[in-house]
């Protein structure tokens, strides 16, 4: 009985996911075709004659009715074939396998930096609410949240790359290391480790650290603000008074009682922030010349390179679904009521 129920649940999940994905893809596809951008011209040049235009459109399969195009597209997608990007000339899957790990690497470091700084800062700000510490933290987070990414990135580079020389410049690695580390995972830091190439690792780290700090500052500022408000809500609850009457220390009250109760909200915020970073931070990627998903998708969208856009959308959709599932699992651990 129980097994049957879980099987039904499993199918329902697959059904739900399938439905969500179809909706997402149909919407992306339609937007791409309705947009006043012409993929034929983007692919083959502005000055095509009428006959050349018709031929290129046919080559790209764009002469078919929308429904047929969509059907073909779904059929290919089921076989995990996103087609070719006409901008890069590569199969979209090859492109994504190249750009997505770059984004994963950057986003993961960014969120780690952000969480390590942001969550403790938020807790401190909540506990020391109204003091100068809270005010200073609020200032710092506000700046982190509102400072233009372009300016932040360039300033970081000016100080730590040009003036101090502590970090490396834009890009993922220096030219001297180009082609030295074979691609295994696509995550350059991991690949360097696997290869045991310490010089390449130091270089790659030098390149990733500034964009990661730039992203992490923004993400950390957001996490700090959210943590502060979640914590304030908990700190004002009656069980805190009880704990204090029972003689619990401030540390124990905050870390043992209040913080675990923010867990679910914090995980949700964390997962969403991570998801947003995984979409690719276009501006950060542009300033730091980081060859990630953000730049790739933006360029594809401006040129109506729909295969690439849809491939990217699919990956981002997957990321959110996976993060969602993971945070669901985490809720069950953290919140006894949902078990």
């Amino acid at each position: 009985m129980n097994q049957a129920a879980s099987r039904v649940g499993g199918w329902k999940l697959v059904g739900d996911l399938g439905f969500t994905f179809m909706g997402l893809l149909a919407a992306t596809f339609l937007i791409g075709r309705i947009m006043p951008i012409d993929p034929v011209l983007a692919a083959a040049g502005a000055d095509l004659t009428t006959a050349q235009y018709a031929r290129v459109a046919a080559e790209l399969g764009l002469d078919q009715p929308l429904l047929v195009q969509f059907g073909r597209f779904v059929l290919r997608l089921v076989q995990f074939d996103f087609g070719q990007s006409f901008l890069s000339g590569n199969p979209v899957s090859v492109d994504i396998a190249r750009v997505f790990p770059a984004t994963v690497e950057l986003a993961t470091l960014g969120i780690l930096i952000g969480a390590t700084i942001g969550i403790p800062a938020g807790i401190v700000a909540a506990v020391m609410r109204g003091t100068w510490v809270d005010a200073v933290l609020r200032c710092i987070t506000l700046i982190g949240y509102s400072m233009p990414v372009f300016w932040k990135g360039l300033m970081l580079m000016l100080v730590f790359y040009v003036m101090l020389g502590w970090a490396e410049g834009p890009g993922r690695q220096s030219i001297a290391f180009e082609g030295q580390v074979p691609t295994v995972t696509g995550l350059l830091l991991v690949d360097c480790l696997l290869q045991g190439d310490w010089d390449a690792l130091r270089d790659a780290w030098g390149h990733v650290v500034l964009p990661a700090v730039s992203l992490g500052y923004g993400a950390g500022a957001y996490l700090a603000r959210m943590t502060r408000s979640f914590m304030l809500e908990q700190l004002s609850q009656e069980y805190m008074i009880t704990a204090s009457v029972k003689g619990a220390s401030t540390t124990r009250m905050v870390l043992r009682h209040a913080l675990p109760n923010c867990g679910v909200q914090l995980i949700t915020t964390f997962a969403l922030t991570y998801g947003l970073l995984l979409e690719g931070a276009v501006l950060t990627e542009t300033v730091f010349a980081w060859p990630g998903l953000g730049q790739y998708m933006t360029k594809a969208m401006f040129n109506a390179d729909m295969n690439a856009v849809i491939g990217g959308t699919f990956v981002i959709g997957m990321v959110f679904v996976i993060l969602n599932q993971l945070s669901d699992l985490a809720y069950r651990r953290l919140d006894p009521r949902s078990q």
Partner: protein
Amino acid sequence: MDAIKRFKPKFYAWGAACALAMLLAPAQAATPRDTLVIAREISAIADWDPAVSQILDTQEINSDMYERLVGYDPRKAGSPLAGIIAESWVMTPDGKQFTFRIRKGVKFHSGNPLTAEDVAYTFKRIISLDREPSTNLRQIGITKENVDNFARAFGDDLFVLSLPDAYATTYILNLLTSAYFGIVDKKLLEANAQGGDYGSKWLSRRTGQEPSAGSGPYRITNFRASDTLILERNDAYWRFKSPLRRVIFRHIPESGAQRLLIERGDADMAFNLTAQDIEALQVKPGTKVELFPSRRVLYAGFNTMVKPFDDPRAVKAMKHLMDYQLWEKTLMRHQGTVHQSFIPNGIMGSLKDHPFKYDVARAKELLAEAGLSQGFSFKLNVVNRRPEIDMATSFQASAALAGVKVEVVMMPPSQLIPMYRDRKVDALMLSFYTPYGDPHATANKFAYSPGGMPGAKPGESYPSELTWRLGWTPTDLSVKVIAATKESDPKKRTALYADIQRQYWESSPFAQTFQAVQAIGMRGNVENYRYGSKGGDTSFAFTSKKNLP
């Protein structure tokens, strides 16, 4: 007080740590002396087939990978057109046949010898693939049907180009310098052809793993779109040994980041700098900026199918409402010089006159003559980038002084081009890049309309033609443009273009405004980079880096 005392040691320790870190910081980085690192926005580079690609960046790089029959020598700036793969050539007296003697002993990167067969194959490919570049061949009467006879190899050493009509020698030779005519390795391409595509699919996609099909001084060894492009010197190059072993393009989209790379010495050249970054590099020791007139000319266009632009006086009034001189000093600083001829400077027939000056009173007069003293309003479409946006807003302000209300609409080029082709713009600002160093390359676009030629079918659509997009069909000018391609005396030909442009200024719905300048930020030791206004004269094949003391 106490607190400060306690704080002091910490402060010193922190200061010492900072100082130490600065000492430990790597000394001024520098790229290897035989390697040129170029920071550039290269996301447009995708399709590498010279017979297909219409992307300028690709064409520039292809120029150093594929050689043409004729072209320019990168060893000397401003060198005249001369034979490259063609050792010599002769024409029949009627001007209808060119016989090129192919240089002996030239080898492709693959090791295959380059012969007249490869040249003939290159022509056949262009016309058969039938993309934008093929238009240039069709204009001189070469078609899919006649190409086998008209572009033909005789043995290994002779290539004969026959034309159904006699054209100006200068026109034909200038045309052949364009990157489209880069000679490709027939054997290699035939081996990689799929379904009669002349190896185009295979050649378009380069990763650096596959053999190269050119014979030029460089070949690709690594390419990742929107990331890195590495070219390696062809040590067997017949003409000279390029000083640089490797040329590396790094995709750095942002001007500020490009400038920092140059300042640090991690890049040798930067291509996409804003005016502020250019000025910073101009004064910084160890870096320099070189300015080159480019092949891009900015223009505005007014749709003659929309009132009141059907009246040339209204269009002329608009041309007097643009503050060219002020723009040159402000928003076009380091980016362009006032240029009102459709032929870029540096190409035969270009005029330096500036018939249109900012003059609101004159504009008002012209509008009054056209019965428009009440003013009118229209939409101006511009691409969403600088300097076009700034120009449009400045124009908007000065037009208001003459009672004309301009609504500026900004959009990405990928959105503007389809509207332009569909004749759906009132007015627009855009640029045109001359594809090769001949006046016909631009005259053909701005002063010629196929629908205006005697005997043209009325109502026919020509979306590829700029004149058609603005509804302009000047019969007299179109006839003159075609006649100018057939004038064999270069002096007379130059005079014909001067005449065409003067007439064009009176009646055309286009207003050329600036010739763009390509500012390139460089390390102080970079020498001999060639950037030309003709396309085929851009090259890094003789660029070097001198030893710094």
